[in-house]
């Protein structure tokens, strides 16, 4: 791989590139699903290729190829330079890249059990057993389970002399039960909706989540929701479970801090951000107890945003985003760092595959744990609604106004968890929401949730991000607007 990369870099330099970086990537994926006791998807794929990004005549160009020969790579590098020169036709300013060291390194994400070495029969038996457990519950009309495993090897090299190999193993799994009754469809999922939990781990993640044990509860709750009371519409106290709070962090902190959005580079598609540059170090983002970091280091946990180096060759870092409620930092790359007064990129350039350009991405954007225990939090709450497991999410294109709904809710009355509520939802304005946070549970209940399906960029790229969160309480929240007509 290194020979091909070096050849691509040499070609780019000879064609006039002032800077170039190359990624050769080999991606392997296995997907297994079941539906109503039958195998659904059973598929495996692999993809290998090379992508090269170059800066020439002050313009950027990127080209990719699956022709991994000297001729193929050479043509690809030449094409990237040609594209960069075309970019210069519509150029307004010179690119300034933050200084970075050259690194030569090799890194493998830790895992205990290689999911590709676990017998397929074992994996399918697990899914079919969980599926069967859910189907035992009367009233369940659809059962679904899934496993997904990925292995990604990347070989990064750049014209400043870096040569970095990284290997990652990613696992994910989930189950869901749906019940159609009367004029209503209700669903419950475990451990999270939309594919379950995903992490930078091996098969040990799947074993730790006890899918079969949780299957009956999931199915029973899906059916029970039909008879549950409708979540009321009111302004009141909200307690969010960890996985829902993880998505709240993703949408209302993770995306607005992306510096490419802030600078207008995503204006046509994903949108911009309310976090204009004047807000840095001046905006009160949340209450005093709100502390959020962007931490790609492995010591933060085996998140989907954990790595040793980003796809621009910058080492993984931990950046304060919100410190004691104050807005402190953005996600940056080598090109944008200087615009916020940084000497160095915060290391957040990531690419989905060899045929995609690295762009600024969330790493692990996590709400640091507080001091509460869930039981104490509920006992301390006189009147609230506890919401768990995301059902829908939506936020405006500047990341102010959001609305989330969850699969299930619970009434909290007089310090006790009471009756089940169906169709819960809440909405608000980002900074008002985070400033209303008055309790965060501790490290014992903190989970680094994986969001495997974050879409951004054109052409679209899907990326996995991590979000550490523990159950937390918010005051004066607008509850129930999603069903305000019914």
């Amino acid at each position, binding site marked *: 791989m290194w020979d091909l990369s070096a050849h691509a870099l040499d070609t780019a330099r000879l064609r006039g590139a002032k800077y170039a970086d190359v990624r050769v990537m080999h991606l392997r994926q296995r997907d297994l*699903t079941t*539906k109503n006791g*039958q*195998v*659904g*998807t*059973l598929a*495996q*794929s*692999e*993809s290998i290729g090379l992508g090269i990004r170059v800066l020439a005549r002050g313009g*950027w160009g*990127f*080209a*990719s*190829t699956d*022709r991994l020969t000297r001729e193929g790579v050479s043509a*690809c590098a030449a*094409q990237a330079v*040609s*594209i*960069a020169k*075309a*970019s210069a*036709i*519509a*150029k*307004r*300013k010179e690119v300034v890249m933050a200084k970075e060291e050259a690194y030569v390194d090799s890194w493998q994400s830790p895992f205990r059990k290689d999911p590709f070495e676990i017998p*397929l029969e074992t994996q399918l038996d697990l899914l*079919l057993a969980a599926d069967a457990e859910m189907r035992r519950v009367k009233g369940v009309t*659809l059962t679904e389970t899934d496993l997904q495993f990925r292995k990604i090897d990347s070989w990064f090299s750049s014209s400043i002399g870096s040569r970095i190999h990284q290997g990652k193993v990613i696992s994910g799994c989930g189950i869901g039960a749906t019940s*159609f009754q009367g004029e209503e*469809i209700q669903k419950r999922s475990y451990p999270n909706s939309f594919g379950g939990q995903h992490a930078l781990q091996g098969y040990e993640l799947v074993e730790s989540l006890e899918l079969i044990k949780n299957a009956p509860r999931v199915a029973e709750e899906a059916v029970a929701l039909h008879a549950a009371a409708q979540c009321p519409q009111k302004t009141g106290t909200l307690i969010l479970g960890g996985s829902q709070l993880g998505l709240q962090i993703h949408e209302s902190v993770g995306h607005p801090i992306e510096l490419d959005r802030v600078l*207008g*580079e*995503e*204006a*046509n*598609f994903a*949108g911009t951000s309310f976090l204009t540059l004047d807000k840095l170090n001046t905006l009160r983002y949340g209450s005093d107890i709100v502390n959020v970091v962007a931490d790609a280091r492995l010591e933060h946990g085996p998140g989907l945003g954990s790595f040793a180096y980003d796809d621009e060759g910058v080492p993984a870092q931990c950046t304060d985003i919100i410190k004691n409620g104050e807005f402190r930092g953005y996600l940056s790359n080598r090109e944008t760092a200087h615009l916020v007064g940084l000497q160095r990129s915060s290391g957040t350039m990531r690419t989905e595959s060899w045929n*995609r*350009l690295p*762009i600024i991405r969330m790493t692990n954007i996590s709400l640091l744990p507080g001091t509460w225990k869930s039981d104490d939090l509920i006992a301390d709450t006189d009147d609230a609604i506890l919401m768990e497991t995301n059902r*829908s999410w939506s936020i*405006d*294109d*500047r990341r*102010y*106004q959001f609305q989330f709904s969850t699969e299930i809710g619970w009434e909290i009355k007089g310090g006790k968890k009471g009756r089940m509520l169906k169709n819960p939802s809440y*909405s608000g*304005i980002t900074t008002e929401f985070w400033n209303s946070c008055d309790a965060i549970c501790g490290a014992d209940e903190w989970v680094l949730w994986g969001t495997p399906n974050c879409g951004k960029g*054109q*052409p679209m790229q899907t990326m996995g991000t991590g979000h550490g969160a523990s159950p937390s309480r918010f005051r004066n929240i607008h509850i129930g*607007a*999603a*069903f*305000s*007509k*019914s």
Partner: protein
Amino acid sequence: MSPVRKTSSRGSARRGSNSAELLPERELRRIIDRVLHLAESTGADETEVHVDEVDDSLTRFANNAIHQNVAERGLTVSVRTVVDGRTARATTNRIDEDSLRGAIDASLSLAHSQPKNPQLLPMPGKQRYRSVNRFAKDTAALSPEDRARAVRRACDLAVKRGQVAAGIFASGSSQTAMGNSRGLFAAYRETHAEFSITMQESPAASWAKANAANVREFDPQRLAERASDKAHLATNARELPPGPYTVILEPSAVLDIVGFLFYDFAATALADKRSCLNDRMGKKIFDENISVVDDVYHPQQLGAPFDGEGMPRERVLLVDRGVPKNLVYSRASAKAAKEKATGHGFALPNEYGEAPMNLVFGGGEASLDEMIASTDRGLLVTRLWYIREVDPYEKIMTGMTRDGLFLVQKGKVTSAVRNFRFNQSLLEMLRNVEMLGPAVRATGEEAFEMVVPAMKVREFHFSEVTKF
């Protein structure tokens, strides 16, 4: 109309570098035949091969300059084998013989690992397809310089008007071919071009977008001018209270919300009881003025005339004057329902079955101006954004307005309005359609392209307002 100025340099970057024309169809057939031959000695009862090739480029701009400019070329081979009533798929992007053998072996290994599926059907044999021509050589040959010059003109317009432009200009070609051990062979190629632009006149913005098989079917500069004019109109937005409003939805706004209905017409979705049409087929659930077909052969549609199993796509009447009449079927769902396959199946194995992917709504005669003129008080909506399903059976969707929301009073657009969040049942919306424009090919960001009209809809429910 000529969207980009053609020069002698057109296509030079392609011919002079990595990018090349798509492989001839006979090369794809050769790969398929090679895999089928290799699979004969493996014990596979049946084998199916898909070969997909893309050659795409995209020029992206923001802050009145190109900031990303990419090209992608790739080919994948996907193999599905059947052994003793079990099936699985393996995909690779390497076409040397060892890799192709590896994909066959991986597919067989996956297939062997599972219980027998008594519902698995034999692969279909040879089929006949209607021919469609959606390949424009000029579009396939569009160069980075061609795109950059068009972008430069749009950005210059923004600078001249004190605005900031962002968007994309994409072009490319792709092809797919499939064959199986029962003699089926199908192949399709198309070109595609897309221009999307957001013009920002702080704090306002507006947007325009088009795509087509042939780049000559739209004019980037006209799109830039339209977005620029609307961005200027969108300044000084006033805040209105949320509530029910009469709305005039431009075609892109219609597309992005009605697109969420497409999977509800899958027979598998009804069998799984996750469609909003369960217990509603044959009942009048929309207005008389709503009719929908799925028609891949419509002149404004794109896509292959066959599905993931190689079955010919059929034109299907989904909604007839407000009544959901028909569903689309894969071979398996057709057999289970004792119906005929309509050619809408996904590649096997999968758990979703099928879906209509080429929706065409019936249109009306009203122009956008006539809709505005007929409105005493309402809102003109450019596009909708971040739409998600809140309730799957009542089909309540939530989302935001974006890039130009305008108040209409006494038949005239009078001011810009701050963006709203909506929570609106799609079923109810399609019962409240008062006027329809001509159906046109529309493009957005939430749903795939369709042929849809602008719609005037009463009592569209906005629940909250944002800060811009």
